[in-house]
């Protein structure tokens, strides 16, 4: 508990520093915020007009399709907000500056993963959460289905954290971060629509191998009553296992760090 409090305090401190740095570039902050909102609006309009014409997408009606889209945005934005520091990890490894992270009395993974919360994403989280719950409510979910949804969104975040840890580990071993993280983002964008639109073997790959389906589609399906309790438990177990595996990979990668250039 003491440790948790300490790390919460450190996270708040690091986030405050990160926000202050962004506040210094108000023009960039405004442009990126507008960009994110415009992109969201374009995709949202696309889904509305598409479903007006087709009535359904892979068997889902407009509200259900919108829920998939909103759940994708919610998980994606939350993980961008929490794990933005990963995008700044490469210069630390290349320059040897990671030595300074290792020598500090806080967990190096914690610092590398969550050391720079993103203000732009934080601004969009509240309206996005309200929109997601509004659309979810239109589907009349039961309390159990809503609980499953919340649990599976949290599970999606755990899997997203695991992905980011894998990327960090790969970064130490191969010095490659930027492309890996962008490929992860592009793969996760496949979850913008219900994974049922994809055919096998791609559907299987993005459900189990790169578990975009579990991260994004399963929470939305839970609201629609399409997830059994066993399916939810299986998904949560999968999430925890992937997370443990990512830790093991990080520890393995850390032993490969050569402190070159420092």
């Amino acid at each position: 508990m003491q440790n948790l409090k300490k790390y919460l305090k450190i996270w708040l401190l690091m986030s405050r520093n990160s926000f202050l740095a962004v506040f210094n570039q108000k023009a960039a902050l405004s442009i990126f915020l507008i960009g994110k909102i415009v992109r969201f609006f374009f995709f949202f309009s696309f889904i509305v007009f598409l479903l007006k014409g087709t009535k359904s997408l892979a068997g889902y009606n407009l509200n259900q399709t919108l829920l998939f889209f909103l759940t994708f945005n919610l998980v994606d934005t939350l993980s961008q907000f929490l794990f933005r520091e990963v995008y700044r990890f490469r210069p630390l490894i290349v320059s040897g500056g990671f030595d300074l992270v290792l020598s500090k009395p806080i967990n190096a993974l914690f610092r590398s993963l969550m050391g720079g919360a993103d203000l732009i994403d934080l601004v969009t989280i509240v309206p996005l959460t309200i929109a997601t719950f509004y659309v979810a409510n239109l589907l009349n979910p039961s309390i159990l289905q809503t609980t499953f949804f919340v649990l599976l969104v949290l599970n999606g975040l755990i899997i997203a954290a695991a992905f980011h840890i894998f990327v960090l580990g790969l970064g130490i071993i191969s010095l490659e971060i930027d492309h890996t993280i962008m490929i992860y983002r592009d793969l996760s964008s496949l979850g913008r629509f219900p994974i049922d639109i994809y055919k096998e073997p791609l559907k299987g790959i993005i459900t189990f191998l790169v578990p975009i389906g579990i991260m994004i589609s399963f929470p939305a399906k839970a609201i629609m009553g399409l997830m059994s309790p066993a399916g939810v438990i299986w998904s949560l177990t999968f999430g925890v296992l992937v997370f443990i595996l990512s830790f093991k990979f990080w520890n393995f990668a850390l032993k490969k760090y050569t402190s070159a250039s420092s």
Partner: protein
Amino acid sequence: MWRVRNILQVVLTFFLWSSVFRDPQTEVFGYNQEKILTYVFGILILRAIVFSARAVDVAGEISNGDITNFLLKPVSYFKYWATRDIASKALNLSFSIVEITILFLILKPHLFLQINPVILFAVFVSLILAIILFFCLLFITNMSAFWMPENGWAAQFLFIVIITDFLSGGVFPLDIMPVAFQKVLYSTPFPYLLFFPLQVYLGKIGGPEIIRGLTTSIVWIFILITILKYVWAKGLRKYSAEGR
């Protein structure tokens, strides 16, 4: 790696539209399965021809002062970047042809093949105009770095990566939008970058509309070149060779 990202986007849109047009007899928004999948694959090629450009680096040159080197040389800065753009387009086009071949072999879509030489010539002309239009739009956006050197790339993200990509039909066909919105959009330069050449190729628009579209593109090119020259002149007066 940027090519991998392009492929993933094509995969997403391919399966999305395949799902909508699961029944080959389905016809929505004036498209059948064959034409919509041609649109998806066509976008991959057209992006390589129209959107791939090295002029994205102009904002960086302005903000770090490297542009000074070119201002002192007896070469046209615009022609220099136009040349680099052509090289970039050739490189990207060759990649996209390989990718399309691989995707075609894996996904085996039924594609629409246009054989009318007059229409193919119109597609060719519309593509040339689209390349010039995009070059002007990209350059004008990059020149925002004269006034905000640290945020030239942010302006590019908003105006090129998001607004131009969507409004040109790069993410979805524009004719699924309401007719009133389309009419407004047709008076802007954006649809003439990707959407219009593809509509011509697919034979979705007739002769008078093709001529009107080509004329509008030419008018926009003149307007944008005028703006480009004006902004360039104003920008150079503002430029203080920071970083040099």
